Structures are given as structure tokens and as C-alpha cells.
């Protein structure tokens, strides 16, 4: 069946270092991928997205890489700050038949040490 999973459930980094959060997906039909950040007690907050016709997309301090060959997605955060501490989820979607539901991974907890 379709599933999205994360390789590392927890990640601890030093402030100022770069962080890399990984995600594996199994549905080769997925054509849209999103990273969300969830702080404690809050709803998921959009970070960055990428379509399957791209392999890299950059935002402010964040980069998403997509490797369709191995069905792997990663989120890179440059110069990680204490405010980046949160749980990060990847989610996938395919628009076949107007299916717009997001399928979510388990989440990776990022802890930034000052």
C-alpha cells in the first residue's frame, strides 16, 4: 500500500549547524510533496513544497531535495536556530482523480541545542 515514512525519529543538532531530515515514500504515483513544521500544541505549518518534475527547491534557509529514483525526500535547514525546534513531517499527494488528500509520514523531532 501507499505509505510515507521517516528514517530518523529524532535529530539533535547544535545551533548554527545544518540539519538534514529524511523521508521515504512508496507511492511512485505521488507528484507533490510538502514539508510541514509542527510546534508543540500547534497545527502543521507549511515550510516548502516540491513537485515531481523538480529535484531541488530552495526557500529561505531551507532546501528540499527529491530523488524519485529511490523515492526519497529530504529537508535541509541551514544554520539551524533554536526556533527551528519542532516536529517535521513530510507529506505526499497525487492529483489522480482529484485526490487531494495528504498522506503523512511519522515525523522527525528536531532538537536544537544552544
Amino acid at each position, binding site marked *: 500500500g501507499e505509505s510515507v515514512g521517516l528514517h530518523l525519529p529524532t535529530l539533535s543538532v547544535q545551533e548554527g549547524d545544518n540539519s538534514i531530515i529524511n523521508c521515504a515514500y512508496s507511492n511512485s504515483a505521488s507528484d*507533490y510533496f510538502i514539508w510541514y513544521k509542527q510546534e508543540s500544541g500547534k*497545527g502543521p505549518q507549511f515550510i516548502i*513544497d516540491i513537485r515531481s518534475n523538480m529535484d531541488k527547491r530552495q526557500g529561505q534557509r531551507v532546501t528540499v531535495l527529491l530523488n524519485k529514483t529511490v523515492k526519497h525526500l529530504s529537508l535541509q535547514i541551514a544554520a539551524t536556530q533554536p526556533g527551528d525546534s519542532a516536529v517535521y513531517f513530510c507529506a505526499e*499527494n497525487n492529483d489522480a482523480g482529484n485526490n487531494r488528500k*495528504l498522506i503523512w509520514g511519522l515525523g522527525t523531532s528536531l532538537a536544537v541545542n544552544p
Partner: protein
Amino acid sequence: EPEVTQTPSHQVTQMGQEVILRCVPISNHLYFYWYRQILGQKVEFLVSFYNNEISEKSEIFDDQFSVERPDGSNFTLKIRSTKLEDSAMYFCASNDPRVSSTDTQYFGPGTRLTVL
């Protein structure tokens, strides 16, 4: 910046009672969603809603669940007879790919439902 809002932030109810969770999606969005997240688990899709009807629902969304858009701004999730396992965070989301040119769904802060 427009945002999705949800009320109440926390709802405590007795097993078997009906609850209604409320959401105000971002205005001019046309697609609406409910997701739930059981404590410590991943977010799960419940239902999507477009053009005043359900466009897709998951296995979780059984006959005890219903959604409604009673007016031009609110989007509600009703659970008719709550069970202990309904305890979770419920998130509302909305989007309109025609506006944003992406499928990005914007989420509300969630309602924590506790069933006793």
C-alpha cells in the same frame, strides 16, 4: 496574513455524546479538509470537501462522522456518538490550487478532543 481558525481549542466530552468541531477556512479557498492526529502518531486524513459535498473520505470517517458548511464561512465536523478512541487533535485545512498554483494546504491550530 489570512489563516485558518478553529474552535474550541480543547473539547472534553463524555463517551456517547455528540460533539461539533468548528473551523473557519481561509476566505476564497474552496477545498476544505479534516485531519486528526492521535497523540504521538502521524496525521491522518479524514475527509475532503468541495462544492458543498464530500469529495473523498477515509476509512476512519464512518457513519458517526459528518461534515457541513452551514454558511459561507464555517466548516464543521460532527461526531455523533463519541468513543474513547476518538480522542485526538483534529485539524482543519483549506486550499485553492487555482489561487496558490500549488496544492499547499493551510492548517488551523487544531482542536484537542478528549473523550472520557
